[in-house]
């Protein structure tokens, strides 16, 4: 019941966010100097030729008209076509999204897989040498530029040892093993800071929970520390963990833009930077639309699961 109402409310909030976000991008792109019609007209364009092209692609309409039209089509699932190559934007995105999602998902799995145990280990031994070592390592991880880590990984594991490919991506459905081999280094490069962030956040949340009166009482009652940790400690930090995960998805989708450049991965990140530099407005717009929806839905999911785990959240 609570969850149902929360879902409805949140879904209603999502719409204006998407409208504002896409409007911001649309506005930015139209402030950009340069004329895509000129770019399409090739060598020796006559002003008439340019005008024809501008009309053909609807670039001569007023700004708000163009945005409204785009939004109307987008709402109906049509993200229009690339200005430069005439490819449907939705198919461009569909071709590339799997590559990006694979490395982001893999990075997230690695980030949580290593971050959670490390965070727990540090929190349980709060103040010990292990904790201090882990905390320092985590600070280092958070400050590590992911594309620098990527360059180091390529030099060592692709060029010197030849264990992994240095570039590209493979289809997860067509060649799953090959796809994972290609995704391994980019995912590790992305996961570096994720592991650190997850471990850090989990550690401090867990330390706080373990220091509460309630847990101290349990301990006084003679419950074993392991039991306290698993039954009470982790349950209480699950919400923190979820929030961090949501935040990480957003951050990973951003970091992947540079990582895809380092590894020449045809993903949404390289698509958006290429299209932005080449002023292919509909593609930039389409990718932003999809990414923003992805981020918002992730946050929504996080909130819903958090509400299910902790009834206090939905009441607040």
């Amino acid at each position, binding site marked *: 019941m609570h969850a149902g109402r929360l879902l409805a409310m949140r879904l209603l909030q999502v719409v204006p*966010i998407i409208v504002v976000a896409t409007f911001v991008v649309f506005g930015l792109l139209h402030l950009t100097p340069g004329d895509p019609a000129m770019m399409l007209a090739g060598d020796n364009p006559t002003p008439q030729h340019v005008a024809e092209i501008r009309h053909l692609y609807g670039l001569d309409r007023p700004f708000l008209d163009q945005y409204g039209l785009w939004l109307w089509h987008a709402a109906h699932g049509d993200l229009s076509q690339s200005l430069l190559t005439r490819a449907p934007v939705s198919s461009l995105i569909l071709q590339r999204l799997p590559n990006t999602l694979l490395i982001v998902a893999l990075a997230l799995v690695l980030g949580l897989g290593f971050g959670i145990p490390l965070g727990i280990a540090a929190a349980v031994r709060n103040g010990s040498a292990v904790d201090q070592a882990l905390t320092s390592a985590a600070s280092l991880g958070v400050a590590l530029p992911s594309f620098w880590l990527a360059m180091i990984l390529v030099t060592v594991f692709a060029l010197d040892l030849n264990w992994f490919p240095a570039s590209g991506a493979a289809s997860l459905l067509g060649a799953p093993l090959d796809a994972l081999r290609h995704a391994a280094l980019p995912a590790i490069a992305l996961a570096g800071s994720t592991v650190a962030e997850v471990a850090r956040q989990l550690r401090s949340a867990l330390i706080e929970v373990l220091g509460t009166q309630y847990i101290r009482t349990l301990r006084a009652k003679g419950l074993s520390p392991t039991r306290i940790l698993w039954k009470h400690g982790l349950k209480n930090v699950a919400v923190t963990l979820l929030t961090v995960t949501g935040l990480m998805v957003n951050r990973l989708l951003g970091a992947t833009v540079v990582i895809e450049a380092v590894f020449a991965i045809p993903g949404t990140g390289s698509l958006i930077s290429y299209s932005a530099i080449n002023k292919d407005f509909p593609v930039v717009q389409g990718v932003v639309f999809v990414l923003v929806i992805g981020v918002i839905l992730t946050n929504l999911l996080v909130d819903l699961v958090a509400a299910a785990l902790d009834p206090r959240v939905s009441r607040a």
Partner: protein
Amino acid sequence: MTRWRLPVGAMLALLFLGFLVVLSVAARWIAPASPIQQNLDDMMLGPGPGHLLGTDDLGRDVLSRLIYGAPVSLYACSLAVGVATILGVPFGVLIGFVGGWADEVGSRLLDALLSFPAIVLAIGVTGALGIGTTNAMLAVGLVLAPVMARVVRAQTLVVRGSLFVEAAQGFGAGPLRVIVRHILPNAIQPVIVQITLALAMALLAEASLSFLGLGVQPPQPSWGNMLARAYGYMEIAPEQMYPPGLAILLTALSFNALGEWLRVVLDPTMRKRGKS
């Protein structure tokens, strides 16, 4: 008083950042050579007595470029964080103080901006403003502003509901006076913490944008564009990617360490506990 004792990490961070400031101010006396003087007869030399960190693909001294990169990076970070503060703080105070529909609309706008992966928004803004250090950092500032606004808004909400603000309003203090006298001083501490952390984010963003060729433009050296150059020579001269990478890592680490320490020191809940 004991809380002000510097932990080792924060002390190292302060020392390192101080060192960077000295480097920035005194680059031209400290650096062994010009950062832009080319010598096409001495390209890609390995580290040696003449050039402690070797030379780059135009025969320029890598150590000197690294040193001259410090002021560029510090300027870039400060600019971005300055923009974020100037935009974010008033906005956060405003929506938090006015409340109601202004808060509702403002918060949705912040949500929208925060739902962009940061670098994507920065690329978009750079596209609109044009390529270059200042423009790229304005873009990063715009991206960081909503984070700042959110922190300030939350703090404003807390302070606005407190007894002494209600009392001040009861005595007939105008909204501007309340904001300046009561809200800002109480919101300043989380803002300081946030600024320090944002400096680290701005540094990494500058490096990323410069790596993509959208940030600091050659021949001006920046750690990000030095890394981008080194990327092209990974097989021939892998050692070239370590100096700028380490510089970025250590600087970001220092900003973070400083931020974490300030967070503990300035935490209002701890301070209140100290007073009572």
